[in-house]
Protein backbone atom coordinates (compact mmCIF):
# COMPACT_ATOMS: atom_id res chain seq x y z
CA UNK A 1 0.00 0.00 0.00
CA UNK A 2 1.12 3.53 -0.80
CA UNK A 3 2.51 5.29 2.21
CA UNK A 4 0.67 8.50 3.02
CA UNK A 5 2.78 11.62 2.65
CA UNK A 6 1.36 13.04 5.84
CA UNK A 7 1.16 11.53 9.28
CA UNK A 8 -1.72 9.16 9.96
CA UNK A 9 -4.78 10.78 11.54
CA UNK A 10 -4.96 10.38 15.30
CA UNK A 11 -8.20 9.95 17.20
CA UNK A 12 -8.97 10.91 20.76
CA UNK A 13 -12.22 10.87 22.72
CA UNK A 14 -12.89 14.41 23.95
CA UNK A 15 -16.08 13.54 25.84
CA UNK A 16 -18.75 10.84 25.84
CA UNK A 17 -20.30 12.59 22.84
CA UNK A 18 -17.34 13.87 20.88
CA UNK A 19 -14.25 12.65 19.06
CA UNK A 20 -11.19 14.70 18.14
CA UNK A 21 -9.56 13.88 14.81
CA UNK A 22 -6.00 15.20 14.55
CA UNK A 23 -4.83 15.65 10.96
CA UNK A 24 -1.39 16.94 11.85
CA UNK A 25 0.63 18.10 14.82
CA UNK A 26 1.37 21.68 13.89
CA UNK A 27 -0.12 24.85 12.46
CA UNK A 28 0.62 24.39 8.78
CA UNK A 29 -1.14 25.16 5.52
CA UNK A 30 -1.17 21.50 4.53
CA UNK A 31 -2.89 20.47 7.76
CA UNK A 32 -5.44 23.25 7.36
CA UNK A 33 -6.23 22.06 3.85
CA UNK A 34 -6.87 18.56 5.14
CA UNK A 35 -9.25 19.95 7.79
CA UNK A 36 -11.01 22.00 5.11
CA UNK A 37 -11.40 19.00 2.82
CA UNK A 38 -12.67 16.78 5.63
CA UNK A 39 -15.30 19.37 6.59
CA UNK A 40 -16.43 19.67 2.97
CA UNK A 41 -16.74 15.89 2.70
CA UNK A 42 -18.63 15.58 5.99
CA UNK A 43 -20.98 18.38 4.93
CA UNK A 44 -21.69 16.91 1.49
CA UNK A 45 -21.90 13.31 2.72
CA UNK A 46 -23.02 13.60 6.35
CA UNK A 47 -22.60 10.69 8.75
CA UNK A 48 -25.81 9.65 10.48
CA UNK A 49 -25.73 10.69 14.14
CA UNK A 50 -23.11 13.45 13.74
CA UNK A 51 -24.46 16.66 15.24
CA UNK A 52 -21.74 19.26 14.92
CA UNK A 53 -18.23 19.95 13.66
CA UNK A 54 -15.71 22.24 15.39
CA UNK A 55 -12.76 22.77 13.05
CA UNK A 56 -9.42 24.17 14.20
CA UNK A 57 -5.86 24.49 12.86
CA UNK A 58 -4.98 20.86 12.41
CA UNK A 59 -7.90 19.04 13.99
CA UNK A 60 -11.64 18.56 13.84
CA UNK A 61 -13.87 17.93 16.84
CA UNK A 62 -16.87 15.83 15.84
CA UNK A 63 -19.84 16.01 18.17
CA UNK A 64 -22.28 13.11 17.89
CA UNK A 65 -25.49 11.76 19.35
CA UNK A 66 -24.17 9.23 21.88
CA UNK A 67 -27.41 7.25 21.65
CA UNK A 68 -26.80 6.56 17.95
CA UNK A 69 -23.01 6.48 17.62
CA UNK A 70 -20.00 5.64 19.72
CA UNK A 71 -16.33 6.54 19.32
CA UNK A 72 -15.31 3.24 17.71
CA UNK A 73 -18.17 3.22 15.23
CA UNK A 74 -17.59 6.86 14.26
CA UNK A 75 -13.88 6.25 13.88
CA UNK A 76 -14.37 3.33 11.52
CA UNK A 77 -16.98 5.28 9.51
CA UNK A 78 -14.46 8.11 9.14
CA UNK A 79 -11.67 5.96 7.69
CA UNK A 80 -12.97 6.02 4.07
CA UNK A 81 -13.43 9.81 4.32
CA UNK A 82 -9.86 10.24 5.53
CA UNK A 83 -8.49 8.01 2.81
CA UNK A 84 -10.03 10.30 0.18
CA UNK A 85 -8.46 13.51 1.51
CA UNK A 86 -5.32 13.43 -0.64
CA UNK A 87 -7.37 13.01 -3.82
CA UNK A 88 -9.99 15.64 -2.97
CA UNK A 89 -9.56 18.95 -4.84
CA UNK A 90 -9.42 22.20 -2.85
CA UNK A 91 -12.30 24.61 -3.38
CA UNK A 92 -11.53 27.88 -5.21
CA UNK A 93 -10.21 30.56 -2.84
CA UNK A 94 -11.73 34.01 -2.32
CA UNK A 95 -9.62 37.09 -1.60
CA UNK A 96 -10.90 39.62 0.96
CA UNK A 97 -9.40 42.97 1.93
CA UNK A 98 -9.96 44.25 5.46
CA UNK A 99 -9.37 47.95 6.12
CA UNK A 100 -7.84 48.56 9.55
CA UNK A 101 -7.26 51.76 11.47
CA UNK A 102 -4.14 50.89 13.46
CA UNK A 103 -3.13 52.34 16.82
CA UNK A 104 -4.68 55.10 18.92
CA UNK A 105 -7.81 54.21 20.85
CA UNK A 106 -8.55 51.47 18.27
CA UNK A 107 -5.27 49.67 18.90
CA UNK A 108 -4.29 50.38 22.51
CA UNK A 109 -1.57 47.71 22.51
CA UNK A 110 0.14 48.79 19.26
CA UNK A 111 2.95 50.74 20.91
CA UNK A 112 3.48 47.98 23.48
CA UNK A 113 3.78 45.37 20.72
CA UNK A 114 6.23 47.61 18.83
CA UNK A 115 8.35 48.14 21.95
CA UNK A 116 8.33 44.39 22.69
CA UNK A 117 9.88 43.70 19.29
CA UNK A 118 12.18 46.73 19.13
CA UNK A 119 10.23 48.25 16.24
CA UNK A 120 8.35 51.45 15.59
CA UNK A 121 4.56 51.35 15.44
CA UNK A 122 4.80 52.11 11.72
CA UNK A 123 6.98 49.03 11.22
CA UNK A 124 4.45 46.85 13.03
CA UNK A 125 1.66 48.22 10.80
CA UNK A 126 3.77 47.70 7.67
CA UNK A 127 4.61 44.14 8.68
CA UNK A 128 1.07 43.24 9.76
CA UNK A 129 -0.53 44.57 6.57
CA UNK A 130 1.94 42.94 4.13
CA UNK A 131 1.18 39.21 4.07
CA UNK A 132 -1.73 37.36 2.58
CA UNK A 133 -3.28 35.48 5.47
CA UNK A 134 -5.31 32.29 5.20
CA UNK A 135 -8.51 31.77 7.23
CA UNK A 136 -7.58 28.53 8.94
CA UNK A 137 -10.97 28.22 10.63
CA UNK A 138 -13.79 30.09 12.31
CA UNK A 139 -13.98 29.35 16.00
CA UNK A 140 -14.17 30.70 19.54
CA UNK A 141 -17.15 32.99 18.78
CA UNK A 142 -19.54 33.52 15.82
CA UNK A 143 -17.50 34.60 12.78
CA UNK A 144 -14.13 34.74 14.58
CA UNK A 145 -11.52 33.87 11.93
CA UNK A 146 -8.18 32.39 12.94
CA UNK A 147 -5.65 33.57 10.39
CA UNK A 148 -2.46 31.81 9.45
CA UNK A 149 0.54 33.74 8.18
CA UNK A 150 1.44 36.22 10.92
CA UNK A 151 5.12 37.23 10.44
CA UNK A 152 7.12 35.55 13.19
CA UNK A 153 8.61 38.91 14.18
CA UNK A 154 5.13 40.00 15.36
CA UNK A 155 4.31 37.00 17.55
CA UNK A 156 3.37 38.40 20.98
CA UNK A 157 2.23 36.67 24.14
CA UNK A 158 -1.42 37.03 25.20
CA UNK A 159 -2.24 39.54 27.92
CA UNK A 160 -1.74 38.27 31.48
CA UNK A 161 -5.28 39.35 32.29
CA UNK A 162 -7.76 39.17 29.40
CA UNK A 163 -9.95 42.23 28.78
CA UNK A 164 -13.53 41.76 29.95
CA UNK A 165 -14.80 43.43 26.78
CA UNK A 166 -12.95 43.73 23.50
CA UNK A 167 -14.76 46.13 21.12
CA UNK A 168 -16.29 44.70 17.95
CA UNK A 169 -13.95 44.87 14.94
CA UNK A 170 -10.76 44.91 17.05
CA UNK A 171 -7.71 43.42 15.34
CA UNK A 172 -5.42 41.58 17.70
CA UNK A 173 -2.33 39.42 18.03
CA UNK A 174 -2.22 36.46 20.41
CA UNK A 175 0.88 34.29 20.29
CA UNK A 176 1.56 33.59 16.61
CA UNK A 177 -2.05 34.21 15.69
CA UNK A 178 -3.86 37.28 14.47
CA UNK A 179 -7.52 38.00 13.81
CA UNK A 180 -10.53 40.29 14.08
CA UNK A 181 -13.07 40.18 16.92
CA UNK A 182 -16.41 40.05 15.01
CA UNK A 183 -18.50 40.78 18.10
CA UNK A 184 -17.67 42.34 21.42
CA UNK A 185 -16.37 39.54 23.66
CA UNK A 186 -13.88 39.04 26.45
CA UNK A 187 -10.44 38.47 24.97
CA UNK A 188 -6.74 38.16 25.77
CA UNK A 189 -5.14 39.19 22.48
CA UNK A 190 -3.11 42.39 22.15
CA UNK A 191 -5.17 44.93 20.21
CA UNK A 192 -3.35 46.79 17.45
CA UNK A 193 -6.23 48.26 15.44
CA UNK A 194 -9.87 48.08 14.45
CA UNK A 195 -11.80 47.48 11.24
CA UNK A 196 -15.02 49.35 10.41
CA UNK A 197 -16.33 46.30 8.51
CA UNK A 198 -19.12 44.19 10.03
CA UNK A 199 -17.53 40.75 10.29
CA UNK A 200 -20.72 38.93 11.32
CA UNK A 201 -24.20 40.01 10.25
CA UNK A 202 -27.27 37.87 10.80
CA UNK A 203 -28.95 39.40 7.74
CA UNK A 204 -26.04 38.61 5.41
CA UNK A 205 -25.58 35.39 3.46
CA UNK A 206 -23.19 33.98 4.48
CA UNK A 207 -23.48 35.62 7.89
CA UNK A 208 -19.74 35.63 8.40
CA UNK A 209 -17.70 37.91 6.12
CA UNK A 210 -14.82 35.45 6.30
CA UNK A 211 -15.11 31.76 5.51
CA UNK A 212 -12.70 28.92 6.16
CA UNK A 213 -10.06 28.88 3.37
CA UNK A 214 -10.40 32.58 2.41
CA UNK A 215 -7.29 34.67 1.65
CA UNK A 216 -7.17 37.91 3.64
CA UNK A 217 -5.10 41.07 3.43
CA UNK A 218 -5.20 43.98 5.89
CA UNK A 219 -5.02 47.54 4.53
CA UNK A 220 -4.05 50.42 6.82
CA UNK A 221 -6.58 53.26 6.78
CA UNK A 222 -6.81 56.59 8.58
CA UNK A 223 -9.31 57.46 11.29
CA UNK A 224 -11.13 59.62 8.74
CA UNK A 225 -11.48 56.67 6.33
CA UNK A 226 -12.59 54.52 9.29
CA UNK A 227 -15.45 56.94 9.95
CA UNK A 228 -16.32 57.08 6.24
CA UNK A 229 -16.70 53.30 6.28
CA UNK A 230 -19.32 53.79 8.97
CA UNK A 231 -17.07 52.48 11.73
CA UNK A 232 -17.78 53.06 15.39
Amino acid at each position, binding site marked *: MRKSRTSEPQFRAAS*DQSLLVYLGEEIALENHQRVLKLIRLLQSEPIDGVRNLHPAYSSLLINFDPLRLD*HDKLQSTLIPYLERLDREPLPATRGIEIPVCYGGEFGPDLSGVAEMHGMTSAQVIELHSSPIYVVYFL*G*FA*PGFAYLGGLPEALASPRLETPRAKVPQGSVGIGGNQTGVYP*ISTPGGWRLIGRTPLAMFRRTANPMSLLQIGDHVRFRAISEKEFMEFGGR
Partner: protein
Amino acid sequence: MRALIVEAPGLFTTVQDLGRDGFGPMGVSASGAADAVSLRIGNRLVGNPEGAAALEMTLVGGAFTFDRPEIVAVTGADFGPSLDGMALPMWTSIEIRQGQTLKFGPSRSGARAYLCVQGGIAVEPFLGSASTHVLSGLGGFEGRALRKGDRVELGAANSLFRKIAISPNALESLQPCKTIRITDGPQRDWFAESSWKTLCGNAFRVSEQSNRMGIRLEGPPISLDASREMITEGVSLGAIQVTPSGQPIILFVEQQTTGGYPKIANVISADLHSLGQLRPRDEIRFERIELSEARSLLIQQEALLASKELIQE
Protein backbone atom coordinates in the same frame (compact mmCIF):
# COMPACT_ATOMS: atom_id res chain seq x y z
CA MET B 1 -51.42 36.42 18.36
CA ARG B 2 -51.46 35.14 21.93
CA ALA B 3 -48.68 36.50 24.06
CA LEU B 4 -46.99 36.51 27.42
CA ILE B 5 -46.37 39.94 28.88
CA VAL B 6 -43.30 40.57 31.00
CA GLU B 7 -44.39 42.53 34.11
CA ALA B 8 -40.99 41.98 35.73
CA PRO B 9 -38.11 40.26 33.95
CA GLY B 10 -36.30 38.74 36.94
CA LEU B 11 -32.52 38.72 37.12
CA PHE B 12 -31.76 37.16 33.75
CA THR B 13 -34.58 35.56 31.77
CA THR B 14 -34.05 34.32 28.21
CA VAL B 15 -35.87 32.28 25.58
CA GLN B 16 -34.25 28.85 25.23
CA ASP B 17 -34.92 25.58 23.45
CA LEU B 18 -32.56 22.63 22.92
CA GLY B 19 -30.07 24.71 20.94
CA ARG B 20 -28.76 24.81 17.39
CA ASP B 21 -26.58 22.05 16.03
CA GLY B 22 -24.41 22.12 12.97
CA PHE B 23 -23.01 25.65 12.94
CA GLY B 24 -19.67 24.93 14.59
CA PRO B 25 -17.86 25.62 11.29
CA MET B 26 -19.12 29.25 11.62
CA GLY B 27 -17.93 29.46 15.22
CA VAL B 28 -21.51 29.29 16.53
CA SER B 29 -22.01 26.94 19.46
CA ALA B 30 -25.23 25.08 20.26
CA SER B 31 -26.49 27.23 23.16
CA GLY B 32 -29.89 26.04 24.47
CA ALA B 33 -31.35 25.39 27.91
CA ALA B 34 -28.80 25.15 30.73
CA ASP B 35 -30.92 22.38 32.28
CA ALA B 36 -32.28 20.60 29.22
CA VAL B 37 -33.89 17.86 31.32
CA SER B 38 -36.17 20.36 33.10
CA LEU B 39 -37.06 22.05 29.80
CA ARG B 40 -37.94 18.74 28.15
CA ILE B 41 -40.14 17.62 31.04
CA GLY B 42 -41.87 21.02 31.21
CA ASN B 43 -42.72 20.77 27.53
CA ARG B 44 -44.04 17.22 27.96
CA LEU B 45 -46.33 18.41 30.77
CA VAL B 46 -48.01 21.04 28.57
CA GLY B 47 -48.25 18.78 25.52
CA ASN B 48 -45.46 20.43 23.49
CA PRO B 49 -42.73 18.70 21.53
CA GLU B 50 -39.95 18.38 24.11
CA GLY B 51 -37.68 20.84 22.29
CA ALA B 52 -40.20 23.73 22.20
CA ALA B 53 -38.94 27.14 23.31
CA ALA B 54 -39.63 28.27 26.86
CA LEU B 55 -38.43 30.90 29.33
CA GLU B 56 -35.28 30.17 31.32
CA MET B 57 -35.06 32.20 34.52
CA THR B 58 -31.84 32.59 36.47
CA LEU B 59 -31.53 32.85 40.29
CA VAL B 60 -34.42 35.35 40.59
CA GLY B 61 -37.59 34.87 38.58
CA GLY B 62 -39.92 37.44 37.06
CA ALA B 63 -43.68 38.12 36.83
CA PHE B 64 -45.74 37.38 33.74
CA THR B 65 -49.33 37.81 32.60
CA PHE B 66 -51.14 36.28 29.66
CA ASP B 67 -53.72 37.90 27.41
CA ARG B 68 -55.56 34.56 26.88
CA PRO B 69 -56.16 31.47 28.98
CA GLU B 70 -53.06 29.27 28.82
CA ILE B 71 -51.70 25.92 29.91
CA VAL B 72 -48.30 26.15 31.57
CA ALA B 73 -45.82 24.14 33.62
CA VAL B 74 -42.97 25.29 35.84
CA THR B 75 -39.93 23.03 36.18
CA GLY B 76 -36.30 23.23 37.28
CA ALA B 77 -35.27 25.07 40.42
CA ASP B 78 -37.84 26.21 43.00
CA PHE B 79 -38.28 29.97 42.62
CA GLY B 80 -41.42 29.96 44.80
CA PRO B 81 -43.93 30.34 41.94
CA SER B 82 -47.34 31.82 42.70
CA LEU B 83 -50.49 32.55 40.70
CA ASP B 84 -52.31 35.69 41.83
CA GLY B 85 -50.61 35.27 45.18
CA MET B 86 -51.45 31.58 45.65
CA ALA B 87 -48.56 29.10 45.78
CA LEU B 88 -48.32 27.20 42.52
CA PRO B 89 -47.20 23.56 42.35
CA MET B 90 -44.21 22.79 40.11
CA TRP B 91 -43.67 19.86 37.72
CA THR B 92 -47.38 19.73 36.86
CA SER B 93 -49.65 21.15 34.15
CA ILE B 94 -51.62 24.22 35.21
CA GLU B 95 -54.50 26.12 33.62
CA ILE B 96 -54.14 29.87 33.77
CA ARG B 97 -57.02 32.28 33.21
CA GLN B 98 -56.73 35.42 31.16
CA GLY B 99 -55.21 38.27 33.15
CA GLN B 100 -53.78 36.16 35.97
CA THR B 101 -50.24 36.97 37.13
CA LEU B 102 -47.66 34.24 37.40
CA LYS B 103 -44.93 35.37 39.74
CA PHE B 104 -41.55 33.99 40.76
CA GLY B 105 -39.17 35.01 43.51
CA PRO B 106 -35.56 34.22 44.36
CA SER B 107 -34.30 30.67 44.00
CA ARG B 108 -34.79 28.41 47.02
CA SER B 109 -32.68 25.66 45.47
CA GLY B 110 -30.75 25.49 42.22
CA ALA B 111 -30.13 28.19 39.66
CA ARG B 112 -32.63 27.92 36.82
CA ALA B 113 -36.39 27.59 36.51
CA TYR B 114 -38.33 27.02 33.29
CA LEU B 115 -41.74 28.38 32.34
CA CYS B 116 -43.19 26.24 29.55
CA VAL B 117 -46.40 27.36 27.83
CA GLN B 118 -48.54 25.20 25.56
CA GLY B 119 -47.62 26.15 21.98
CA GLY B 120 -44.16 27.27 23.03
CA ILE B 121 -42.57 30.69 22.71
CA ALA B 122 -42.82 31.88 19.10
CA VAL B 123 -39.71 33.84 18.20
CA GLU B 124 -38.15 33.92 14.77
CA PRO B 125 -35.61 31.11 14.72
CA PHE B 126 -31.96 32.01 14.19
CA LEU B 127 -30.02 29.19 12.50
CA GLY B 128 -32.86 26.80 13.25
CA SER B 129 -33.26 27.49 16.95
CA ALA B 130 -35.10 29.88 19.25
CA SER B 131 -32.24 29.85 21.77
CA THR B 132 -30.78 33.15 22.87
CA HIS B 133 -27.01 33.48 22.51
CA VAL B 134 -26.55 36.47 24.77
CA LEU B 135 -22.88 37.18 24.14
CA SER B 136 -23.39 37.62 20.40
CA GLY B 137 -26.88 39.10 20.75
CA LEU B 138 -28.32 36.46 18.45
CA GLY B 139 -31.46 34.31 18.60
CA GLY B 140 -34.23 34.29 21.17
CA PHE B 141 -36.18 37.48 21.85
CA GLU B 142 -34.21 40.22 20.07
CA GLY B 143 -31.00 38.42 21.04
CA ARG B 144 -31.24 39.57 24.66
CA ALA B 145 -32.59 38.88 28.12
CA LEU B 146 -36.24 39.91 28.62
CA ARG B 147 -37.16 43.36 29.95
CA LYS B 148 -40.21 44.79 31.63
CA GLY B 149 -42.96 45.41 29.09
CA ASP B 150 -41.77 42.88 26.50
CA ARG B 151 -44.62 41.14 24.70
CA VAL B 152 -43.45 37.63 23.86
CA GLU B 153 -45.63 35.84 21.31
CA LEU B 154 -46.75 32.26 21.75
CA GLY B 155 -47.06 29.45 19.22
CA ALA B 156 -50.31 27.72 18.23
CA ALA B 157 -51.76 25.67 21.09
CA ASN B 158 -54.20 22.78 20.88
CA SER B 159 -55.84 24.03 24.11
CA LEU B 160 -56.41 20.51 25.38
CA PHE B 161 -55.79 20.38 29.10
CA ARG B 162 -54.71 17.17 30.79
CA LYS B 163 -53.90 17.34 34.46
CA ILE B 164 -50.59 15.52 34.55
CA ALA B 165 -47.46 15.69 36.67
CA ILE B 166 -44.01 14.16 36.83
CA SER B 167 -43.87 10.98 38.90
CA PRO B 168 -42.12 11.47 42.27
CA ASN B 169 -39.72 8.61 41.50
CA ALA B 170 -38.65 10.10 38.20
CA LEU B 171 -38.18 13.51 39.80
CA GLU B 172 -36.01 11.90 42.46
CA SER B 173 -33.76 10.12 39.97
CA LEU B 174 -33.36 13.25 37.83
CA GLN B 175 -32.39 15.46 40.78
CA PRO B 176 -29.38 17.61 39.94
CA CYS B 177 -26.24 16.45 41.76
CA LYS B 178 -23.31 18.25 43.37
CA THR B 179 -21.01 15.35 42.58
CA ILE B 180 -20.29 15.72 38.90
CA ARG B 181 -19.08 12.69 37.00
CA ILE B 182 -16.31 13.17 34.44
CA THR B 183 -14.47 11.22 31.78
CA ASP B 184 -10.88 11.82 30.68
CA GLY B 185 -10.31 14.86 28.46
CA PRO B 186 -8.15 14.96 25.33
CA GLN B 187 -5.08 16.26 27.23
CA ARG B 188 -5.55 13.85 30.16
CA ASP B 189 -1.90 12.77 30.02
CA TRP B 190 -0.62 16.36 30.35
CA PHE B 191 -1.65 16.10 33.97
CA ALA B 192 0.28 14.10 36.53
CA GLU B 193 -1.44 11.63 38.84
CA SER B 194 -1.17 14.26 41.58
CA SER B 195 -3.21 16.72 39.47
CA TRP B 196 -5.94 14.12 39.07
CA LYS B 197 -5.89 13.64 42.87
CA THR B 198 -6.32 17.40 43.28
CA LEU B 199 -9.26 17.42 40.88
CA CYS B 200 -11.06 14.39 42.27
CA GLY B 201 -10.07 14.69 45.94
CA ASN B 202 -11.20 18.25 46.69
CA ALA B 203 -14.29 20.38 46.65
CA PHE B 204 -14.38 23.26 44.15
CA ARG B 205 -16.43 26.40 44.62
CA VAL B 206 -18.51 27.86 41.79
CA SER B 207 -17.26 31.40 41.16
CA GLU B 208 -19.49 34.46 40.90
CA GLN B 209 -17.96 34.92 37.42
CA SER B 210 -19.82 31.88 36.08
CA ASN B 211 -22.41 32.18 33.35
CA ARG B 212 -23.89 30.25 30.44
CA MET B 213 -20.53 30.37 28.63
CA GLY B 214 -18.46 28.87 31.37
CA ILE B 215 -18.53 27.79 34.99
CA ARG B 216 -15.42 29.06 36.71
CA LEU B 217 -14.26 27.08 39.70
CA GLU B 218 -12.16 28.07 42.69
CA GLY B 219 -10.11 25.50 44.54
CA PRO B 220 -6.62 24.14 44.94
CA PRO B 221 -4.66 24.81 41.72
CA ILE B 222 -4.32 21.93 39.30
CA SER B 223 -0.76 21.76 38.03
CA LEU B 224 0.04 20.73 34.50
CA ASP B 225 3.05 19.97 32.37
CA ALA B 226 3.56 23.52 31.09
CA SER B 227 6.38 22.53 28.76
CA ARG B 228 3.90 21.25 26.21
CA GLU B 229 2.52 23.61 23.62
CA MET B 230 -1.18 23.51 22.99
CA ILE B 231 -2.55 24.16 19.50
CA THR B 232 -6.07 25.61 19.58
CA GLU B 233 -8.59 22.83 18.92
CA GLY B 234 -12.33 22.16 19.01
CA VAL B 235 -13.81 21.96 22.49
CA SER B 236 -16.88 20.07 23.62
CA LEU B 237 -19.73 20.96 25.94
CA GLY B 238 -18.73 20.26 29.53
CA ALA B 239 -14.99 20.33 28.83
CA ILE B 240 -12.93 21.09 31.94
CA GLN B 241 -10.09 23.32 30.78
CA VAL B 242 -7.28 24.31 33.09
CA THR B 243 -5.90 27.84 32.84
CA PRO B 244 -2.20 28.62 33.47
CA SER B 245 -3.11 29.65 37.03
CA GLY B 246 -4.44 26.11 37.59
CA GLN B 247 -8.09 27.06 37.97
CA PRO B 248 -10.57 24.90 36.10
CA ILE B 249 -13.33 26.30 33.88
CA ILE B 250 -16.19 24.10 32.68
CA LEU B 251 -17.32 25.12 29.20
CA PHE B 252 -21.07 25.45 29.21
CA VAL B 253 -23.98 25.82 26.75
CA GLU B 254 -22.91 29.16 25.23
CA GLN B 255 -19.36 27.87 25.01
CA GLN B 256 -16.70 28.93 22.59
CA THR B 257 -16.33 26.34 19.79
CA THR B 258 -12.52 26.14 20.04
CA GLY B 259 -10.00 26.84 22.76
CA GLY B 260 -6.33 26.84 23.55
CA TYR B 261 -6.25 25.58 27.14
CA PRO B 262 -5.63 21.90 27.89
CA LYS B 263 -8.65 19.89 28.96
CA ILE B 264 -8.08 17.45 31.79
CA ALA B 265 -11.60 16.01 31.75
CA ASN B 266 -15.16 16.39 30.45
CA VAL B 267 -18.47 16.30 32.32
CA ILE B 268 -20.56 13.32 31.25
CA SER B 269 -23.71 13.97 29.18
CA ALA B 270 -25.99 12.59 31.90
CA ASP B 271 -24.73 15.23 34.37
CA LEU B 272 -24.85 18.29 32.11
CA HIS B 273 -28.28 19.29 33.44
CA SER B 274 -26.83 19.32 36.96
CA LEU B 275 -24.38 22.03 35.83
CA GLY B 276 -27.34 24.20 34.87
CA GLN B 277 -28.53 24.19 38.48
CA LEU B 278 -25.23 25.27 40.07
CA ARG B 279 -25.32 28.57 41.93
CA PRO B 280 -22.39 30.85 42.67
CA ARG B 281 -20.65 29.65 45.88
CA ASP B 282 -22.02 26.09 45.52
CA GLU B 283 -19.40 23.44 46.23
CA ILE B 284 -18.99 20.56 43.84
CA ARG B 285 -16.85 17.45 43.64
CA PHE B 286 -15.73 15.40 40.67
CA GLU B 287 -15.87 11.65 40.20
CA ARG B 288 -13.81 10.10 37.40
CA ILE B 289 -15.56 7.31 35.47
CA GLU B 290 -15.05 5.36 32.25
CA LEU B 291 -16.60 6.32 28.90
CA SER B 292 -18.60 3.08 28.83
CA GLU B 293 -20.17 3.91 32.19
CA ALA B 294 -20.93 7.45 31.03
CA ARG B 295 -22.75 6.01 28.06
CA SER B 296 -24.85 3.60 30.12
CA LEU B 297 -25.79 6.40 32.52
CA LEU B 298 -27.02 8.48 29.58
CA ILE B 299 -28.93 5.55 28.11
CA GLN B 300 -30.64 5.04 31.50
CA GLN B 301 -31.49 8.72 31.78
CA GLU B 302 -32.90 8.87 28.26
CA ALA B 303 -34.91 5.69 28.85
CA LEU B 304 -36.49 7.30 31.90
CA LEU B 305 -37.22 10.51 29.98
CA ALA B 306 -38.87 8.48 27.20
CA SER B 307 -40.81 6.17 29.51
CA LYS B 308 -44.52 6.24 30.29
CA GLU B 309 -43.61 6.18 33.99
CA LEU B 310 -42.15 9.68 33.75
CA ILE B 311 -45.56 11.32 33.73
CA GLN B 312 -48.61 10.39 35.76
CA GLU B 313 -52.23 11.51 35.72
